């Protein structure tokens, strides 16, 4: 009965939020997304290994699980010997998490709190370890990183640990003519009609999809590394130049970005990647189609600049700008441009 009232109160709270926020939290209320995340073996197994294989780090510690969802990470932490785990989630999925924790006999070890990290009060003044699966598409889209950083600054003991503690965004250039044609060229002729007004919109929307490794024309480059112990929310707005070196003579239609996640505190470091070279994850990769096609020769370097900032109106949306400059002796292949994208 009390639970039912909680659910209603939570739903009421969700209703009073701004539309975009509401949509964000509501989208996590559905099972489908949790099923997808749990069935993402790369993700779930990496967290499991990082936690369960490091009992020496978790034994008798107080752990905070930021954005706990179905509480799977909280339960891993209990298995690893944590003294107590606090799971926090805004979404009403937390009521399911309570049931799950109960049937797994861990309700005395795990406290689940429904609410916004910034607004709730924890039963412990400080925690020894923060665990969180906060990553979004392109690492930062709809990510909870700012909430994790808030929790770090407010609750983490001086020598406390963060799982994971390092995230790196990578990028490389890909040949993707066929699909670009299908996605972007589609609007040139729709059942015999000119639909080009929708083409710009399509170009401005980064595509979350899987990319085959054979499409990669350049070596990958690490663009941004975030150290979760030291970074601040200001670091989530950045403008970074980087170079990509072509591996072969080919065309570049798009830039593809992905991220790697590290748990460096582990006895045996645990790491997973969401790149095109490795196993599928539900994050897939993020493809940014360029307005031009770059014609590159083996060994050539292309200069890029990646500019990312949260949207002024809705901070969970991202405004992204990619500048490119291919400088060659061959004037016909010279190319320079700037593309603006919005993830929303």
């Amino acid at each position, binding site marked *: 009965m009390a639970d039912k009232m909680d659910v209603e109160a939570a739903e009421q*709270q969700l209703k009073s939020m701004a539309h975009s926020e509401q949509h964000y939290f509501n989208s996590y209320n559905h099972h489908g997304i949790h099923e997808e995340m749990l069935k993402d073996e790369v993700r779930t197994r990496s967290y499991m290994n990082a936690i369960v294989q490091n009992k020496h780090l978790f034994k008798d510690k107080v752990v905070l699980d930021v954005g706990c969802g179905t509480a799977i990470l909280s339960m891993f932490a209990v298995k690893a010997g944590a003294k107590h785990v606090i799971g926090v989630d805004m979404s009403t999925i937390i009521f399911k998490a309570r049931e799950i924790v109960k049937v797994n006999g861990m309700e005395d070890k795990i406290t689940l709190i429904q609410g916004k990290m910034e607004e709730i009060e924890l039963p412990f003044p400080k925690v020894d370890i923060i665990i969180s699966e906060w990553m979004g598409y392109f690492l930062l889209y709809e990510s909870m990183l700012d909430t994790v950083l808030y929790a770090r600054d407010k609750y983490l003991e001086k020598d406390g640990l963060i799982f994971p503690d390092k995230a790196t965004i990578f990028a490389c250039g890909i040949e993707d003519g066929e699909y670009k044609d299908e996605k972007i060229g589609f609007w040139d002729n729709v059942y015999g009609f000119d639909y080009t007004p929708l083409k710009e919109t399509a170009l401005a929307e980064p595509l979350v999809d899987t990319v085959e490794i054979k499409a990669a024309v350049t070596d990958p480059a690490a663009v941004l590394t975030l150290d979760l112990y030291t970074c601040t929310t200001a670091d989530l707005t950045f403008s970074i130049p980087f170079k990509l070196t072509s591996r072969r003579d080919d065309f570049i239609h798009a830039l593809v970005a992905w991220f790697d996640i590290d748990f460096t505190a582990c006895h045996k470091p645990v790491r997973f990647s969401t790149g095109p070279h490795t196993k599928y994850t539900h994050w897939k990769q993020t493809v940014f189609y360029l307005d031009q096609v770059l014609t590159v020769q083996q060994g050539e370097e292309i200069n890029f600049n990646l500019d990312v900032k949260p949207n002024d109106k809705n901070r969970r949306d991202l405004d992204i700008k990619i500048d490119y400059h291919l400088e060659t002796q061959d004037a016909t292949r010279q190319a320079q441009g700037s593309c603006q994208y919005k993830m929303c």
Partner: protein
Amino acid sequence: MSAAPNRPADRYPPASESGDSDSRDEEDWSDAEEEDDEEETLEVISLLDDRVFPDVMSMLAHCKEKHGFDFLGVRQRLQLDFHGCVKLVNFIRQRVHEGLSVTEDISWSDIDHEQYLKPVLDDDAVILGLFDLPELKPAVQGSNGNGDNAALVDDLLKRNSELQEELARVKTQFDSYRVAVQQTLDERWGDVDQAEAESSAAAKAGKGKENGEKKEDDSQYYWDSYAGVDIHETMLKDAVRTDAYRDFIYNNKHLFAGKTVLDIGCGTGILSMFCARAGAAKVIAVDASAIITKAQENIFHNNLSSIITCVRGRIEDVALPVDEVDIIVSEWMGYCLLFEAMLPSVLFARDRYLKPDGLLVPSHANIWLAPVSDPQYVADNITFWRDVYGFDMRAMQAGIYDEARVLTWPASSAPADPNSTIPAAPSAFKLLDLYQVQTSDLSFTAPFATTLARDIDALDGYLIWFDMFFSPTRNSAQSAVELASTAEAWAAADPQNRVAFTTGPHGRETHWKQGLLLCKPKAEEANNASTSKVGGEIKGEISFSIPEDHARGLIIKVAWNGNRSQTWSLR
């Protein structure tokens, strides 16, 4: 003549100079003309009354002030050169002479007559003073010569009218862009308003909102969900859907030629453009979503703006530029046909705008149900939760028997095949004749029945889909769509004019997929010959209804085999 002094327009003439003397006193005129030499002040008689002025500019200023007649404005508008001005002056004088009124809306055709080159007043000082007028914006040299000058004038006039036509064209184009921009802006402002409304609602402690208001919010969200490009890409690339509309419209051009068509929920405008290309005289495209601005651009780029008019808003609220239409075309179908509840809008438009003999495209729909039995699906999607990385997550199953799932069910082998996932023939349970159906008919209870073609371990659920029919006639005997008509067979009977498609698992995949209603397992059923063995009958009733708290949602209830009953919602 060019040496004649320029006089500032604001220097007002002494009104007393010629007193009340008759302006048409020709003697006065001749005298003045003969006596004054170039440097002297001419007596300029007003075009519109009998006042006399020392120069043309002050006379014109008087006409503008006193009579509201802007000579220079008319000259500028008609781009009059010297001869044009002469004609204008004489035209005015002639009318005044005849006691007719003179207004500013004089057109070129009014004054373009040779007779107006002949002065109405001899030695009219106004005509002599025309050379002193400020130059036209595009300078026209009209002072030298007469013969070839006329040719030049004609040329310029011709060019002038061409330019004006072009200007009109550009104006129309600009107007259509302006509308698009305005709507985009409105939408932006609308967003802000909405955000403000929401935050103020939140400030009021977010107490329970009124029901009506809540339903409206739902609707807003519904429209918003169609504003993005993705969903339209999905729909346009759903070739089963888009091809069906295209084929019907293009194969039946005779039905569309010269007709007025209403497209409800036009989205990117594709159906409207099909109709326009098929020969419709006029298409009105209505959509409440912001995507309509894209439709407008698309229509413009395809040179169909003169045929298609876009109207943003709910069909129930907007004012259409016509009272009735010959054809209503709409792609209103949602998951399980009736989710999203757009059909009532089409029915509203049918009753409000469709001519008695008008056509509905599409014209009929029927809904199907088939039992499914698929142990693999159950293992992957239900049993899965019993052991997730060593944890019991059964709690996550909670909704699966209460919520309809939208998914693509793989085509099943024949029902009798031991590996079939659909072990019995599908059963059609509802036919919607769109000419007859009422909104109240969309909540209904209907019987269904089918017979197992093989033994099953368990009835795992029911699959729901629909078929769509596009009939070229509203004569129901000729349409001949029946409850159990299948899209394939019905269309095959008249492939020239009929078009139909299915969203069932046996057809090509569509973005509607199918609806899956999972049944709770019943242990005792496994050995019940009447419900799990070949020849066993599965029959009962299915009802569709609309949830009270979510006007665009759908509730489906199935009661079968006497004692089984379950309810699923789609939201």
